[in-house]
């Protein structure tokens, strides 16, 4: 290993209007290593990498690749410099084949035939070398997310990238797929490639990186050897103060059954059955966590229970059946029954972004008599007073009720929604992705609020794609796959591997000698095939 860094950034600064996304950032990434960049949302990680990939131009600063100063005005230049990037949201053409996606922009000449033939050979070779197996003739839309990600990596390798940047690569993967991805990355590292891994998950940093750089509010706060640090220290560097990584909670004392769901079915507007007979029960004073890879029906389950979608089946709240299709199947009726809903997509379903915090606090509860001045007018002063109280109790920052919702950070937006729903003292709280896009400091607070509500004897249905969150918060865990519940486990009696298999629809522990990823691959491919048949193609 040489002393010349594969990448060296010196004094990179970048502003978007008044917001300084990167402040005087310097970093050295050594060749043949996996370098993690960790930081909260909005810390500037993605901006920094977009500068390196030529998506943005830095206001000031210098980039050195293998010791040579390099200008990267566009993606073309980045590719020429040997940099490949796997974006969080894949940049693939859905109705092109794998081969077509791989050669797009890197064709060898005016005609496609020779390029496609060459790519087929290269892909075969890469598949063997790095366990990057994908059918070269498959349409992207027919591939599972994990396979689509492999195509993105293949795209970069086909362009002979020596430096690979991955932006939050595990967000959409099952744990087995994530493990497989890490194996691929280890393989690439062995071949001398340099890898930059951007993530907000401490576990991944500890598991796979050699070096880790921490970013906070646009600044690089530290670069340390992974072996010489701990999750706690990294969290502190990210947030700027000590944070509690484990959720402090006592064992649940479940009471009577509050929410009972039987054989719930929902078919979406495209005619695809999203819920295929869900049955579950949540008791007072417990948190039922629903784990699963996003897109397996969890969103629809929350939306049906929250009154945003209709369904067939039976749902009982405190023993009384509720309306699932008729005129009392709306959100208003659900709130009247004591169901509060913190939706997954807070920016579209939880808040109206251009409206102020105090207006948002009243939404859904604007019929509340205490918000009315008389028969016609609302009492805005009363709403504002109420909102200010909630903002204070939920530690919303900045504590300004007149600010538009969009001007708060993700974590503080979530606190506004939580304050509105929790302070209504519901019997049941439906909560989806409570900490998606939320900074670590706020995660701690939000988790505490959810546990506190449980301890008051409320029933909580938690949906999250973050397995760590499910395991640390839930008293019971149900795993959803393809619109069905694959099984229920106690957090103390299960582990990530078992849940991960359930998330891929594998209910039986496979043979010892069969690699897990093959089992998961087969299962996910089978699901895709069923879907394709339903849509009537291929």
């Amino acid at each position: 290993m040489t002393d010349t860094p594969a990448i060296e950034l010196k004094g990179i600064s970048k502003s978007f209007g008044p917001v300084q996304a990167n402040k005087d950032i310097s970093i050295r990434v050594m060749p043949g290593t996996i370098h993690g960049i960790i930081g909260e949302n909005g810390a500037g990680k993605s901006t920094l990498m977009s500068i390196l990939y030529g998506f943005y131009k830095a206001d000031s600063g210098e980039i050195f690749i293998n010791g040579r100063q390099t200008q990267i005005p566009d993606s073309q230049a980045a590719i020429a410099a040997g940099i490949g990037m796997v974006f969080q949201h894949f940049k693939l053409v859905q109705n092109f084949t794998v081969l077509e996606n791989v050669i797009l922009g890197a064709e060898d000449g005016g005609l496609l035939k020779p390029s496609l033939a060459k790519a087929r050979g290269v892909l075969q070779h890469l598949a063997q070398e790095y366990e990057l197996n994908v059918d070269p003739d498959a349409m992207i839309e027919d591939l599972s997310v994990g396979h689509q990600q492999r195509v993105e990596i293949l795209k970069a390798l086909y362009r002979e990238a020596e430096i690979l940047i991955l932006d939050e690569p595990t967000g959409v993967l099952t744990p087995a797929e994530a493990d497989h991805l890490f194996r691929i990355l280890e393989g690439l590292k062995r071949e001398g490639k340099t890898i930059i891994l951007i993530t907000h998950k401490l576990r991944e940093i500890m598991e796979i990186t050699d070096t880790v750089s921490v970013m906070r509010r646009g600044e690089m706060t530290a670069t340390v050897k992974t072996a010489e640090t701990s999750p706690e220290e990294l969290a502190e560097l990210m947030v700027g103060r000590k944070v509690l990584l484990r959720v402090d909670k006592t064992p649940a004392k479940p009471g009577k059954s509050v929410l009972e769901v039987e054989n719930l079915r929902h078919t979406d507007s495209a005619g695809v059955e999203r819920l295929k007979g869900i049955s579950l029960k949540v008791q007072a004073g417990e948190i039922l966590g629903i784990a699963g890879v996003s897109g397996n029906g969890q969103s629809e389950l929350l939306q049906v229970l929250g009154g945003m979608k209709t369904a067939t089946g039976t749902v009982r709240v405190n023993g009384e059946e509720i309306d699932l299709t008729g005129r009392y199947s709306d959100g208003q009726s659900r709130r009247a029954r004591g169901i509060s809903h913190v939706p997954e997509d807070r920016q579209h379903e939880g808040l109206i972004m251009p409206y102020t915090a105090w207006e948002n606090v009243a939404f859904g509860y604007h019929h509340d008599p205490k918000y009315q001045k008389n028969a016609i007018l609302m009492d805005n002063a009363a709403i504002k007073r109420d909102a200010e109280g909630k903002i204070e109790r939920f530690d919303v920052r900045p504590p300004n009720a007149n600010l538009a919702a969009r001007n708060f950070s993700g974590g503080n937006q979530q606190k506004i929604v939580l304050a509105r729903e929790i302070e209504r003292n519901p019997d049941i709280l439906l909560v989806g992705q409570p900490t998606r896009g939320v900074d670590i400091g706020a995660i701690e607070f939000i988790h505490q609020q959810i546990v506190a509500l449980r301890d008051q004897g409320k029933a909580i249905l938690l949906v999250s794609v973050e397995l760590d969150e499910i395991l640390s918060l839930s008293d019971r865990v149900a795993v959803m796959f393809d619109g069905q519940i694959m099984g229920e486990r106690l957090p103390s009696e299960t582990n990530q591997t078992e849940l991960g298999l359930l998330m891929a629809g594998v209910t039986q522990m496979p043979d010892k000698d069969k690699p897990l990823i093959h089992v998961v691959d087969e299962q996910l491919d089978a699901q895709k095939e069923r879907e394709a048949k339903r849509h009537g193609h291929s």
Partner: protein
Amino acid sequence: MDLATLIPVLESTIRLSTPLLLACLAGLFSERAGIFDIGLEGKMLIAAFFSAAVAYSSGNVWIGLLAGIAASLTLSAIHGLASITFRGNQLISGVALNFLASGLTVLISQNWFRQGGKTPTLTDGARLSEWHLPFADSLRDVPVLGPIYSDLLSGHAPLVYLAFALVPATWWVLFRTRFGLRLRAVGEAPEAVDTAGVSVVGLRFAAVAICGILCGIAGAYMATGLQPFFGKEMTAGRGYIALAALIFSKWRPWYALGACLLFGFLQAVALRFQNIDLGAFTVPVQVMDALPYILTVVILAGFVGKAIPPRAGGEPYVKER
């Protein structure tokens, strides 16, 4: 119906399908690249006028054709500027250009020729001559195949043969060349093209320019081949029918050929059979004239099935953070 009545109908089907096909392929290039173009009509119209006017003034139909293409390309450039560079709404830009073409052609024509918006009738070298295929005369007497070759396939303007040759050419460009791969990609996922280091703006302008050239040829054919003059609003909604054919064909070149032939056939039938006497009552000529348009609506409403347009169609490309 015997061959003698069928051949003239089919012969005019070919002629009437030609402008539809050219416009439809024009739209195909543009929309496959993600730029919806409702302005096919306006581009054809302005090309029709300028080709006829310049052909008349110069006495050379080919100079007229170039003028028509140039006029159509000018409108394409405006559409590109509005919808690609300035990320405006593509439908509004297209509609505006249609209005512009409709007004401008009549205004200039009246000012120039003072014939109520019409151009004078083109003669000799100012209009497209017909191409006679080899041996057309000597083979005429061969039964069945003779008339098909000599009367149906032979004797059209060169632009007709060009239009039909463009179908396989378009297919080949789209599906066998690097340019085609990138063009289709930019209409489906411009972000994939951008991150691959290829210019989204460049590709889209190229597509819009091809669209302009083909619309120019379509318009020129109408005013120098199909008719020997330009008349007010002479495209008569053909740009919209071409759009309908484009949807009907699900943005595929060979299907586009089929769709345009079908719509052309409907127009030919309406022209050939004006008042149809059904004994008890007579189907009036207006019904026959309206038939292609009515059937367009019926076909689009009922027979298209699931047509999936290019995914990024109509959306200006903005780099994401």
